[in-house]
Every structure is written in C-alpha cells, then in structure tokens.
C-alpha cells in the first residue's frame, strides 16, 4: 500500500531522511518509532505531499506521490501532529470544509460526519465551536475529519501527544477499531508502549535512517528478552539476556543495585543506538 524507495530529504546540509526504503502492507498497523528529530514527521510530510523529497520515490496505492499526487491524496487521511482545526468554526463546519475539499456532496458529508462523529464520541458536539473543546475532543475531531472521505491509508503523526493517560488509552482503542475496519495505519510515535500495544510491525528511525524493522515481538527477541538494569552511582546501564536464569546469574555478581525485567522496544533502540528515546 505504501512503498518508499531510497527516499531522501535534505534541508541544506542537514539530512532529515537518509535513503529510506520501506514497504507497508494493506491493512497493516505500522508503527514508526524514533526520538524527536529522527525524521518521522518529515516522512509523513513527504508521503502526504506537504514536503518534496530531495531524492527517491514513494507511492501510495500505486500512485506516485509527486507525479500523481492528487490520485495518491484521495487515498489518504491525515491526523497531523499539531491540531490544525479552524477554532472559530464548529465541528460540523470543519468537517464540511474537509468534505468539500474531497469533492463530496453535501448530503454525503452530513451522513459521514454523523457516522464518524458517533464513532469518535462527538455526536452531541457537532454544532459546538471547536474552541470550546478539550484537547482530547479536538484530537478525536481531527481523526473523524481524516476518516470522513473514507481513506484507505491513515497517517497519524504523534496523535497522542498532549493527552493524559486515560485519553491516550481511549484513543488506542479507537485506532484499533479503525484498523479493524480495514484502514492501513501509519502511526508515528515516540511512546514505546504505544507502538508495542498497537502495531503489527514497527520501524525504528534514528537520525533519518531506518535502523530496525520487524514485529515488536521479533525486535524485542533480537535484543534479548530479559534486561538487567544496573545502577552504578548516577549511571544506568542495561545488559541483555536470552532468559531469566542467565540474567539472574549476572545480577548476582553486580556490586550495586540491579533490576531484572522483560525487554521492550526502547531497549531495542538503546541496544542499536546506545541512546534512550528522548521525547
């Protein structure tokens, strides 16, 4: 569904995205993980035609994003990192503008607006101005808007940033339901647990390069299933082990304090880069 071949983006001397080759299958929930500045948003902006690539190609549903950008755009919905709703207008008016941009008839816009507003839990708020909404409501409205025209691919750029824990969990449920309805989801996030909980496959990006790509379970297994965190003074170091027995044996030899735990995707990132994911 999404194919990127040697995709590169340079801003002057700074390379934001370096020779990225990545394929996302139809119906897949794909997680794009990395710290801030890794190139996640640049990738989404290229795929949604907001930014031109310096080199390489990308297609969505077989349509080249630069040569057939209008055809490619018809297939996608975008939930941007920054909420870009018209705050002066009502939720319905925001959805109306979106529907007209996608050349939908007014009747169809109204029907789809009701359907997706109910889906995201905003049925009673359609006629209220967006500037009266909470952060979570605004985020849910951007999702309803992105789904209004029936996209086959949904790009979600850090959709849970700024939400509290409960709002984030609610949104996870919503995203899973959207994926079950058949949409391919391309989710960028720097929340490790989000990628682990939601995604079929995860790509880890660091300084514009894709450094790992697999299912969350396979990536974790490749790093070592069990981690021993060793605290020596102010320094935390992590050692990886295939099983609890070998981890326990190592922990017993440690002079300071040590914690044994299951590995997660952040450990994969630490092992590959030597750094932690800093939001």
């Amino acid at each position, binding site marked *: 569904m999404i194919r990127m071949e040697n995709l590169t983006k340079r801003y002057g001397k700074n390379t934001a995205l370096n020779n990225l080759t990545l394929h996302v299958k139809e119906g897949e929930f794909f997680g794009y993980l990395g710290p801030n500045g890794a190139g996640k948003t640049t990738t989404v902006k290229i795929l949604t035609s907001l930014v031109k690539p310096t080199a390489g190609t990308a297609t969505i549903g077989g349509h080249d994003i630069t040569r057939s950008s209008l055809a490619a755009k018809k297939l996608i919905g975008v939930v941007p990192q920054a909420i870009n709703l018209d705050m002066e207008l009502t939720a319905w008016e925001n959805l109306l503008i979106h529907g007209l*941009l996608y050349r939908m008839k007014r009747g169809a816009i109204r029907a789809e607006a009701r359907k997706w507003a109910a889906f995201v839990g905003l049925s009673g708020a359609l006629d209220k101005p967006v500037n009266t909404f909470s952060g979570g409501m605004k985020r849910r409205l951007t999702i309803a808007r992105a789904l209004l025209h029936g996209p086959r691919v949904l790009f979600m750029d850090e959709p849970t940033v700024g939400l509290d824990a409960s709002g984030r969990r609610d949104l996870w449920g919503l995203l899973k339901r959207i994926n079950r309805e058949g949409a391919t989801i391309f989710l960028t996030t720097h929340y490790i647990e989000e990628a682990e909980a939601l995604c079929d496959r995860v790509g880890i990006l660091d300084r514009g390069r894709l450094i790992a790509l697999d299912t969350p379970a396979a990536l974790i297994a490749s790093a070592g299933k069990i981690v021993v965190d060793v605290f020596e003074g102010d320094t935390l170091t992590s050692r990886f082990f295939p099983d609890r027995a070998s981890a326990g044996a190592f922990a017993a030899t440690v002079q300071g304090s040590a914690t044994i735990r299951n590995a997660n995707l952040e450990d994969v990132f630490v092992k590959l880069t030597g750094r932690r994911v800093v939001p």
Partner: protein
Amino acid sequence: MKGFAGVFTRELLIIKKRFLKMLISFSITPLLYLIAFGWGLGQRMTVEGVPYITFLIPGLIAMGSMTRSFAISSEINIARFYWRIFEEFQAAPVSDLAIAVGEVLGGILRGFLATAIICLFALLFRVRLHVNCVFLLAVLANAFTFSSLALITSMIVRSHADQSMLNNFVITPMAFLCGTVFSLKALPGWAHILIAWLPLSPATRAIRAAALGRPMPWGALVTVFCFGIVFFILGTYTIRSAKA
C-alpha cells in the same frame, strides 16, 4: 478545480462568523477620512473639477477594496504558520489552482464588502456615485489584483513579522500615493511617472471614472486586469513552491 469550493466555503464561514466585527473594522478608516478630509476640507475645495469629498470617495473605494482584499495575505499567513490550516488544503486532493481560486475569491469578497460600506457612507455624505456594471468591473479588477498579490506574499513570507513589513513598505505607501486622496497631477513629472506604474494608480483612475460617471479609461482597466492575471499566475505557482 472543484476543490476550490472547500477553500472558498471556509472563507465564507469565517466572514459569516466575523461579519459584525468586519463591518465595524472596515468602516473606521473610511469614516475617519470622510470626517477629517471630507467634511473638514471637502466643502471648501475642488479637485479635478469636483468637490473634494466627491473626489475622495472613489479614492477611498480604491484604497479600501485594495487593503481589504490584500488583507487575506495576513489571514493565509496565520492559517499557514499559526493554525496550520493551510496544510489541510495542501494535503487534500485539490490542485494549487483550486486553492488559489478559493483564496482569491475570498479576498475579492472582502474587497466588495469594503466597497459596499463606503458606498453607504457616500449616501450619508450626499455624494452621488454611479454604481453600475462598469463600476463593479473596476472594483473587481482592483480586488482581484490585490487578492492575487496577497496570495503571492503570503506564500513567500516566512513569518508574521515579514508580513507586517510588506504591509508597511508596500501596501501603506501605495494606499496613499496612487491618487486615492489627492490628484496625481499635483505631483512632479518624475513622481507621476513612477507612481503610474503601481497597480493601484490605474485602478484608482478606473474606479473614480466609473463612480463619477466619466468616460472609462479602458486602458487603465485593462492594465489592472493584466496586473491581476500576472499576479494570479505567480500566486498559483508560489503555492507549489511554498512546499519545503
């Protein structure tokens, strides 16, 4: 091209929300001019064969329709850099031409609103204007030209500060110098030639001639439309080039 309806509908909805505020804001400047220069000076002097207030009102229409049409530049700027609403247009399957048409129509509508307010003031100040098709065509040319120019500037500038600087150094001087509040005949020859090249000068001539029922200087009107077409083409192109 159909996608322009989304862009233009947004402009209509915004105008609807702010209608009263807009009416008040669009009224202040022309009203102050009419009181200070129209009442203060207008009854004692004549310019180009008519009382000054009669000369002034078409100039205010040219000035008002220009500044209000050009004001979409700031609106697009805020939509681009602050609210990021412009990204919604750019991510949609809408051509750059459709975005340009939607935005420029929004600017033209604001220009006509400003014109309608000044025409109402003309009634209050008992100045008879010839509001006919030729007059509306002249206002349309002016509003189209400056909406298109606004589109270019809004895509080129990188911040709100750049936008304000453009307003201060380009639009404000043009608003005063292009024969809106005084006759260009009063200027030295070199200044007259220089100012005649600015797009508001032929627009003011065309609007004034139409409003006062004088023979239309068609060359001036065609010149304004030519400026408008060139600006519109450049504006459409700059939407594409605005992508990083």
